[in-house]
């Protein structure tokens, strides 16, 4: 195995192309070094892109989207005020990835785009309709994250390619989101099941579902729902969860996982709905007046 630290994107993708299939991009390393230790991946080349100068900046806030660069860490994502305002679900997910020390290194793009079905940040990003830009020696292409995952640890980012940016569109006014997950203990843990819900002003909802299928799944969007109606919310949850195919593994049995998916989905929808109400401009004005 060799270690290579390029300074330009061109050098990086050229190196990846040179050893297509056996080279790996190294950013935070919090997943990759575990895999190296267990020899579940055995790359011939590690391409450390943290010194690449022409990458997208870690967090680029524009009027209609935030674009994340490949070196942005979970800590930076969770601490960013715009992320917290626009994408509370993403901030919540970033805040539960590992420990503080992990979050200081772990890359948002690597976590969400490595194809692990249990990755915490993938459900909110799928629900928020993020897209990724994939670069190679033959240029760039952009795909929706919803279409990006092919299977467990398999994505559209093929040999010789790397994800260079992640764009999350600013949510529509009056919408909000929430991320919830189940773990086996209160401290640092991997998700047994996770749900990110986005609820629009009119009561339409979209969900990203983690650890309940071979890939991060998209639920919805549903039609508008009267969120005060328990029956309607239950129907909405049914619809959001229809793609889920939970299985048994070392973290939970199939029945429990399926049941928790429902509990979390319902809670996440209601939480997002509540946040959405709080964000309605007219209400804020009224509060300001009183």
């Amino acid at each position: 195995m060799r270690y290579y630290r390029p300074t330009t994107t061109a050098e990086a993708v050229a190196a990846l192309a040179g050893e297509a299939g056996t080279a790996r991009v190294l950013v935070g390393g919090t997943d990759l070094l575990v895999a190296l230790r267990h020899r579940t991946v055995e790359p011939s080349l590690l391409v450390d892109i943290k010194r690449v100068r022409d990458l997208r900046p870690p967090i680029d806030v524009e009027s209609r989207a935030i674009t994340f660069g490949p070196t942005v860490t979970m800590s930076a994502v969770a601490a960013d005020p715009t992320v917290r305002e626009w994408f509370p679900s993403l901030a919540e997910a970033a805040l539960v990835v590992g420990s503080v020390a992990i979050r200081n290194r772990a890359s948002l793009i690597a976590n969400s785009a490595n194809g692990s079905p249990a990755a915490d940040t993938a459900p909110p990003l799928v629900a928020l309709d993020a897209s990724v830009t994939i670069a190679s020696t033959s240029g760039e292409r952009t795909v929706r994250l919803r279409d990006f995952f092919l299977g467990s640890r398999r994505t559209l980012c093929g040999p010789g390619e790397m994800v260079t940016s992640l764009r999350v569109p600013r949510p529509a006014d009056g919408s909000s989101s929430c991320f919830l997950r189940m773990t086996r203990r209160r401290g640092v843990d991997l998700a047994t099941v996770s749900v990110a819900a986005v609820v629009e002003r009119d009561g339409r909802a979209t969900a990203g579902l983690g650890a309940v299928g071979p890939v991060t799944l998209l639920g919805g969007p549903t039609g508008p729902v009267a969120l005060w109606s328990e029956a309607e919310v239950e129907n909405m949850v049914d619809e959001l969860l229809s793609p889920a195919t939970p299985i048994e593994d070392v973290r939970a049995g199939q029945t429990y996982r399926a049941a928790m998916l429902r509990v979390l989905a319902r809670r996440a929808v209601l939480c997002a709905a509540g946040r959405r109400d709080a964000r309605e401009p007219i209400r804020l004005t009224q509060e300001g007046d009183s």
Partner: protein
Amino acid sequence: MTTQDSRHSVRNAAVVPDELNEVECTVNGARARFSVPPHRTLMDALRYQLDLTGTKTCCAEGECGACTVLVDGVGVNSCLMLAAEADGSTITTVEGLGLDTPSGLSDLQESFLEAGAVQCGFCIPGQVVAAEYLLRGNPSPTVEEIREGMSGNLCRCAGYQRIVAAVQMTARKRSHHD
């Protein structure tokens, strides 16, 4: 029952040595230069090449925090970082925390002793570094913030309450000095 063969992939048993990477960095205020094979973690390089064995190895996969160090002022698990990645960085290990004091102990290290936070001591270097990082970012943390900030550092003797007390004690000491 069929006979099985256990040999792992032959490729792993490569006889060609990996090429070495040169690393230059600042460790506990001093310049350090060393060569590492690409797979070597920062944790192993600190322990076995720089003889800084205060950084401990337990899980070696980022779950226990025993190997916590500061890299450019940021708390990280040195088991999840390649030594090669440390080139050009400034590293503080537990050995570097009390360097400026006559006793050789930082206020935080003293608080760990005073609060009775130390039992077997194996996790303690990582705890001390993690707590130092926490306090630099949040000089007066609440109990909840300490528990959150330290939850990547396992203590099987479970001195958690004493460690929380040590962090609070240090925060008080530092606020009096300000």
